[in-house]
């Protein structure tokens, strides 16, 4: 069954008898470093400003310039913003990949291409639109060295005309992107867009059936990447110390945070910063600084990806055992080892949960969109400080580096929570202070900060065996009591972990469980499964770890539960097997994808249908 809805309207050239409106994907194939990102963002934004739900995904190589790169824009009137595998409209700018890109297309697709490539000779079942980019760029861009960049803007004009995009919106998007300070560059690019438009009007009669039409489904929404959203979340969560080591795909998180901090966190009276950002010598030092800063009372965070997490293992164990807060954003990429640094994966679930030697357990938050990157940044700091332990915020390259249409962020309603910190006045009042004593029965002890002026404030922090007064010990009972308290603390944490998003359909005997960006493919896949196979499903989207009671109840309520995730080894399922009661485990099934691309709905549907024998 086709997922494309068609409406019988005569096309303007009469070549096609139907129109596909607001349900297509464009792929722009260029060379890395050619400046196509700006042109692609403007295209995406124009569609967004027309009120059409849209997503953009940049498939780029681990390279600065010269290797192929693809940008996919999907417009979807239903609001499905996950990846769609099939390409409806190709813009072939890269001679190196053009042939393969064209051969992969489904019949009926449209191809805008650089005329000298003569791609029309390859197939007869596509709609080809040759464009002489080199010829068109000369009159709009007299400066030779800029032509390589401006050339890309021409395809915006061509594609805009062919799809019927609103050029007023495109102009707005362009000038927004360049800003007032680069008005001259914007003018140059606007001329290029118009040159493309004019050429298309004069020379390219419409042959395909793809059209954009204004809708009202993006009102109030924003476009932002997950890394910037997380950065902004940290700024509004009151982050004070940020340390990091550059690594794809997490670097832009701290880089954009530096920009936000400079704008929002400079003390008006003194011109000084209410934060400190330091680029460390490696991830090990970065997390060590976070541990030191948090120990001394800062709200401290670092951001990294899988290889960095591996380096942080020893310190994260120290944070767990010595009970020091830390917030670690893990923007996952494909591992193991260097892996595919510019591809996406949910490959660090187990390492985040269990990092370091000995018995360790770490809380994790799983944002699925920019709004959650923002809100969960705040939650991560509150959990880290309340429970005095490292917290992972587990995102991925797809969420972190791609631009997403998102709900605007809500200003935090709760005050910043600093946890059980005793001041000098508190120490006078309580009489006795034992750093690791379970005073409240929730496993969470009290701490004091260095610099507290009180004779009873000091304690000695160590990663070696310690009793409840923080004294050195190798005694069996001291050790067992302490690590059992840490387990109690982890249990208490379940009350603080955001509850899953779920929908239990009365008619459904099958459930789907997933986390993070897997959301987008699964939501669309459930719709496909219902429409195409008549099967209703329930879902539960995890927002954090440790798992809460809702997960057990959900599995209880269903005959079979598919755990959908983006890794080879079913890591989320493995974590569930570690933590859930054994009788529930036989109900669990696994759907996995691990090719490095953002997961798409059709892949989930196909794997589901196979296992269900539909």
């Amino acid at each position, binding site marked *: 069954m086709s997922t494309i809805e068609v409406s019988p309207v005569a096309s303007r050239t009469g070549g096609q008898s139907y129109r596909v409106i607001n349900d297509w994907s464009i792929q722009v194939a260029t060379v890395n470093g050619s400046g196509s990102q700006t042109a692609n963002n403007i295209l995406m934004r124009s569609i967004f400003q027309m009120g059409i739900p849209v997503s953009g995904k940049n498939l780029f190589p681990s390279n600065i310039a010269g290797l192929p790169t693809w940008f996919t824009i999907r417009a979807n009137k239903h609001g499905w913003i996950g990846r769609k595998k099939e390409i409806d409209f190709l813009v072939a700018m890269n001679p190196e990949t053009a042939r393969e890109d064209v051969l992969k297309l489904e019949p009926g697709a449209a191809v805008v291409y650089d005329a000298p490539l003569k791609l029309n000779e390859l197939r007869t079942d596509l709609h080809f639109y040759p464009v002489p980019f080199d010829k068109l760029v000369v009159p709009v861009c007299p400066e030779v060295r800029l032509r390589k960049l401006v050339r890309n803007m021409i395809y915006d004009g061509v594609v805009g005309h062919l799809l019927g995009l609103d050029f007023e919106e495109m102009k707005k998007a362009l000038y927004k992107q360049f800003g007032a300070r680069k008005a001259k560059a914007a003018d140059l690019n606007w001329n290029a867009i118009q040159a493309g438009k004019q050429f298309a009007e004069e020379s390219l009669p419409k042959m395909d059936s793809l059209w954009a039409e204004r809708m009202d489904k993006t009102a109030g929404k924003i476009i932002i990447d997950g890394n910037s959203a997380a950065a902004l979340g940290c700024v509004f969560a009151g982050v*004070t110390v940020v340390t990091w080591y550059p690594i794809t795909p997490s670097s832009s998180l701290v880089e954009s945070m530096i920009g936000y901090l400079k704008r929002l966190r400079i003390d008006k009276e003194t011109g000084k910063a209410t934060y400190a950002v330091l680029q460390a010598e490696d991830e090990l030092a970065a997390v060590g600084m976070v541990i030191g800063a948090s120990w001394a009372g800062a709200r401290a965070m670092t951001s990294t990806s899988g290889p960095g997490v591996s380096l942080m293992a020893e310190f994260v164990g120290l944070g767990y055992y010595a009970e020091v807060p830390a917030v670690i954003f893990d923007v996952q990429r494909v591992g193991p080892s260097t892996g595919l640094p510019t591809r996406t994966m949910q490959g660090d679930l187990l390492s985040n949960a269990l990092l370091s030697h000995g018995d360790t357990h770490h809380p994790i938050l799983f944002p699925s969109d920019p709004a959650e990157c923002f809100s969960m940044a705040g939650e991560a700091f509150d959990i880290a400080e309340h429970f005095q332990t490292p917290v992972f915020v587990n995102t991925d390259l797809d969420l972190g580096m791609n631009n997403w249409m998102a709900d*605007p962020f809500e200003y935090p309603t709760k005050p910043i929570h600093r946890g059980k910190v005793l001041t000098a006045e508190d120490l006078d009042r309580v009489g006795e202070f034992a750093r690791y004593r379970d005073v409240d029965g929730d496993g969470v002890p009290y701490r004091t*900060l*260095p610099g507290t002026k009180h004779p009873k404030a000091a304690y000695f*922090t160590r990663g070696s065996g310690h009793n409840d007064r923080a004294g050195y010990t190798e005694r069996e009972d001291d050790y067992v009591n302490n690590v059992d308290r840490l387990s109690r603390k982890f249990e208490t944490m379940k009350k603080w972990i955001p509850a899953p998003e779920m929908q239990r359909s009365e008619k459904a005997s099958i459930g789907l469980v997933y986390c993070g960006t897997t959301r987008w493919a699964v939501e669309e896949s459930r719709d496909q499964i219902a429409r195409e196979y008549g099967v209703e499903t329930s879902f539960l989207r995890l927002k954090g770890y440790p798992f809460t009671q809702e997960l057990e109840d959900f599995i209880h309520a269903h005959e079979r539960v598919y755990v959908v995730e983006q890794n080879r080894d079913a890591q989320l399922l493995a974590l569930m097997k570690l933590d859930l009661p054994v009788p529930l485990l036989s109900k669990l099934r696994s759907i996995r994808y691990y090719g490095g691309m953002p997961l798409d709905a059709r892949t989930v549907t196909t794997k589901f249908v196979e296992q269900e024998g539909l």
Partner: protein
Amino acid sequence: MSAAAAPPPKKVNRIGLDVLPYKGGKTTLCAGCGHNSISERIIEVLFELGIEPHSVAKMSGIGCSSKTPAYFLSQSHGFNSVHGRAPAVSTGALMANRDLRGIVVTGDGDTASIGIGQFIHMLRRNVPLVYIIENNGVYGLTKGQFSATADRGSKQKSGVINDMTPIDCCLMGIELGATFVARSFSGDKKQLTNILKACVSHRGLSLVDVISPCVTFNDHEGSTKSYSYVKEHEMALHDVSYVPYYEEIQVDIEEGEVRDVTMHDGSHLRLKKLGRDYDPTNKRQAVDAITDAEKSGEILTGILYMEQGRDTLHDMLGMVDEPLATLPQSRVRPGPEALARMMEELR
């Protein structure tokens, strides 16, 4: 003597504290370990200078040396962290709270091997703290393996000779940006005390490499880090004395014999010439002196290099004057209008 006589009044320092808060738990190191003498010097220096114990953060990595912060300053917060990683933890702590006085105690394993990367980067950043290396040339806790500071030709207890080139942490410090570099000997009470006092007055990173013999694994014939070897080969550059800012200078300086250095806090460091004229602000001379001493088998002690006025990490970060750790919400969470503005830009 009457049995009812009152006990002698406790000696108190200039902030009215007796020595007890400056002391720590009972040491668990070997009797005669050089590290214990260094702990005693730290207690003595901070007591005498009247440093408030709560203002100090005692930091360490892992090893015999790193255990020692438990043996001094019981009213200071301490952090016995991860092997070789005290620099990162200390840097973080001092970013969080710029009012803390960081005293880092590490060993030669910590500094010259597993944590050499962190050591170097801490130097580059001129993190304002006192960094003490308790240098004995061996790994004590794992029973006597050579460390990277063991001299070429030095003999292990088992008879093995070290063939590898030693790492000189002071030379590295001078090359890589430390603004105060000294070498001393745990057995040289007076010199070490005065050097440590100068460290407290220094604004920026001060590095003190203290040769601190391991009585159990490296105090035998053939070792170049034994008590007897160091006593025989120590060559002091100068006689170091220190006059704190709150005391009046009583002795006039003899021209040409004594260098008087006014430190950041107004204290005076006085370096009395011993044999040769040595200018500790001259980087090239410092490097030459250390290199020459190494060639002739001497252990050069004293203040090897100092540079005043360089920006510290705190200056470079441009932070507010108050500790970041305790800034109130009103200063670290921008208002709703700021978020609304950001959202508008993204629409």
